[in-house]
């Protein structure tokens, strides 16, 4: 699964640590999600979407192998 978190972060000009603080998770978690090593739960994905003011599917994109 691909994601556009890095782009969305850049738009909002917020660091991984800042985003982590806003969402109540660790910076390592944001880093792992950005790198595609960890797929977040629906709740966390919805929180992200709400923070970035977009839809979940704008941030997380299915790939062919998913």
């Amino acid at each position, binding site marked *: 699964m691909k994601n556009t978190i890095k782009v969305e972060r850049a738009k909002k000009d917020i660091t991984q640590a800042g985003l*982590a603080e806003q969402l*109540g*998770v*660790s910076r*390592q*978690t944001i*880093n*792992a*999600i950005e790198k595609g*090593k*960890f797929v*977040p*739960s629906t709740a*966390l994905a919805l929180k992200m979407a709400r923070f970035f003011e977009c839809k979940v599917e704008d941030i997380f994109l299915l790939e062919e192998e998913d």
Partner: protein
Amino acid sequence: MKTYFPYYFKRIGILFVFVAFILSFIGNIDDCRRGFYEGWNDARKGIEYEEVQETQGDFLKPYFTKEEAKPWITGSLVLSILGFTLYLFSKEKIEDEFYQQIRSKSLIQALFVTWIFTGLVYWLGPEYDLDGFYILQLHLLFFTLVYAYNRKWKFGTE
């Protein structure tokens, strides 16, 4: 996999494992000295003091009898299991679903490693007394290593 202990229990766990290591060293000091001076193979056979005395004199006189060493070794085993458990099942500084998932994965991976390792020991070295609490201790040790690897390198930033 959710955890039940607060973050500072990790430090208590590390302290317990450290004390357990010291107790284990004290309890096994005679085997350690014998192994150092006589070589690994002879020490493994569990040669008794009388036999040692014949060849080495009083130089390798044991500090403890087996009965005297047992409380140290048992104490070490119990403390290490308690310490590893506290360390592994305590929350991270910022506990979230990422760490819960890594912990869960690591526990399963460590179980497989323990099965394989224990199987190999039974197969290749049946003279080793690896059973009961020692297998549990081994599992917790592998769990610690696999969890650290997953957290820092496989899924982490290092």
